[in-house]
């Protein structure tokens, strides 16, 4: 049996990215613009589905719509562990809005693919502003502190329902914005992780095993994601950073977690090397790719990736812990003339610190949680 052939990456070019559009344009109701069998009639196309259902749930506060937009047995993967079931999504959304009612979920981009007929995949980059006016489990009582963190939510969608989601948020940046030291927050989480049944952390070891055993699949020839994937492999698998950077724009704009922002090939290399230098016995794989046209003849590429290694060198995460560390994230690239002019990478560095400090099962032998 052969795998279903994905639809061309640039099918339905009239289905536009949210990049550069006004909020009035994004919220305008339109007739159906692409075949979406099984989707609610209110959605004109797949980008509209992602942007509008997020708006309806988070901003219009119809949280119960999660029950018609998530599968009952949905699994939501994060670097802090998975959650399972639609009701967990409902409860999590209620809790977030009870603390941060004014959350504006600004869609920066929706990079999507149709991986099999009727099976859609979206990589939704969001930067959301919110104010702590309620009570937050991590950051305490109402303080008026504001967050503006970037998230990438990758969703597998069929028949109007998200059946699996990978959610990566720049949580260390959010901690700093809330006036909390990321290390202190991560330490408290790690200490709590070390209590109770350690098998709840087994997911992390299983994910690392998958990364170590992965045989990289590649996009079909001509797919825009192939170039960025080869660059990341040249950098993180072959350690040929200069060769990788030579193929990106000399003017590349780089935005990485926890405020890392810079321009140029040297800065791009710096971000990649900083992560890689801390992790020995490094393994890396791209788990999913997608691409879509952007305005002004540019192309957006989304890569969902995971990496793991032994934290054996001093670096941004502090002194070497000797622990096995999993990093999973998403990189959104803008390509102009086939070269990367922008790299926005998101991973949860707070969850990385939590592992460095022994949380999420990283304190167990060989990093396991069995």
């Amino acid at each position, binding site marked *: 049996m052969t795998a279903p052939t994905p639809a061309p990456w640039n099918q339905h070019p009239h289905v536009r990215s*949210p*990049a*550069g*559009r*006004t*909020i*009035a344009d*994004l919220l305008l109701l339109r007739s159906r613009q692409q075949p979406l069998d099984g989707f609610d009639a209110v959605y004109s196309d797949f980008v509209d589905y992602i942007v509008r259902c997020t708006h309806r749930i988070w901003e219009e506060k119809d949280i119960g719509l999660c029950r018609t937009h998530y599968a009952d047995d949905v699994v939501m993967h994060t670097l802090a562990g998975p959650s399972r079931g639609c009701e967990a999504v409902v409860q999590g959304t209620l809790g977030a809005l009870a603390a941060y009612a004014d959350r*504006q979920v*600004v*869609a*920066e981009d929706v990079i999507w693919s149709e991986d099999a007929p009727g099976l859609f995949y979206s990589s939704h980059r969001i*930067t959301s*502003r919110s104010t702590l006016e309620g009570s937050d489990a991590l950051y305490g009582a109402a303080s008026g502190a504001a967050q*503006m963190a970037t998230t990438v939510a990758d969703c597998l969608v069929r028949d109007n329902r998200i059946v699996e989601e990978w959610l990566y948020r720049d949580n*260390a*940046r959010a901690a*700093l*914005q809330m006036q909390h030291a*990321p*290390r202190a927050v991560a330490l408290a989480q790690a200490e709590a992780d070390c209590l109770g049944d350690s098998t709840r952390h087994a997911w992390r070891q299983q994910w690392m095993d998958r990364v170590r055993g992965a045989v990289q699949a590649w996009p079909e020839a001509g797919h825009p994601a192939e170039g960025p994937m080869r660059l990341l492999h040249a950098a993180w698998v072959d350690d040929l950073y*200069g060769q990788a*950077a030579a193929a990106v*724009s*000399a*003017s590349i*704009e780089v935005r*990485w*977690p*926890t*405020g*890392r*922002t*810079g*321009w*140029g*090939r*040297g*800065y791009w*290399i*710096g*971000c990649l*090397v*900083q992560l890689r230098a801390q992790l020995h016995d490094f393994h890396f794989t791209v788990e999913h790719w997608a691409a879509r046209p952007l*305005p*002004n*003849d540019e192309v957006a590429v989304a890569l969902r990736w995971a990496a793991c290694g032994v934290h054996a060198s001093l670096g*941004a*995460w*502090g002194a070497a812990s000797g622990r096995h560390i999993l990093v999973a994230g998403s990189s959104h690239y803008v390509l*102009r*003339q086939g*070269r990367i*002019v922008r790299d926005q990478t998101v991973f949860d*560095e707070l969850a990385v*610190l939590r592992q*460095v400090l022994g949380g999420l099962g990283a304190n167990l032998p060989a990093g396991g949680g069995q």
Partner: protein
Amino acid sequence: MNTNTDHVQRLLVELAALLRGLPGSAAPLANTLRVQAMGHETFGRTDALDLFARHPLALSDTPHVLAGPGALAVIDVTPEGRTVGIYADVVEGVLARVWMAGPVAVDAVTEAAVPVASDDFLTQQRTVCAGDPQDHPRLAALAWPQVRASAAEALHSVRDPAAASSSQAVVARAFSSGDAFAALYTLRLQSASTPRHAHRRWALAVCRIGADGALLHRLLAVSGPWPVPVSVFF
């Protein structure tokens, strides 16, 4: 320059409304509008309007304007005599991103960040201008030497005692329109002192060149020094 079309005039009106931070402005701003101006970076149209409401900038009646497909560049002089450059990405008639090369506000702050060790040059054969005309398809090839020359001029114009050999301008945006071009630069200036602190500025050049590529006229705006992010150490 080409300020005569309705399209450009409309964009200019919308930009002027944004820069004045007019609440409830009808200007069609991208929901994802990102602004880097006066030492602040904002994301989202509401935060952009809030920024300019705190620090309004009124364009003069005669700004120098250059428009191209997907971009708008403006050089103006404030009533205080300060040259200010504004560059905007435009998507289907909507202002999508704005930079200002001008004064830095007293309340300017750059978000804390994990420091990243980076080599801007990747060679001992250092150049003051990083960029490649291939990445700027709307820039006439003839203009590239003057884009580089303007980068050098922008660095030279900064009177701080920077280490010339370790400071660099990256061409962030560039386009041509007729015999003119605009180029937006991000400057990273490293001090010659020890320790070697670095800071960032923005610069905008709008130039006219002759048929042989020679520079006929240059307007240049360079921002004040942007605040250096507080380093995050885990």
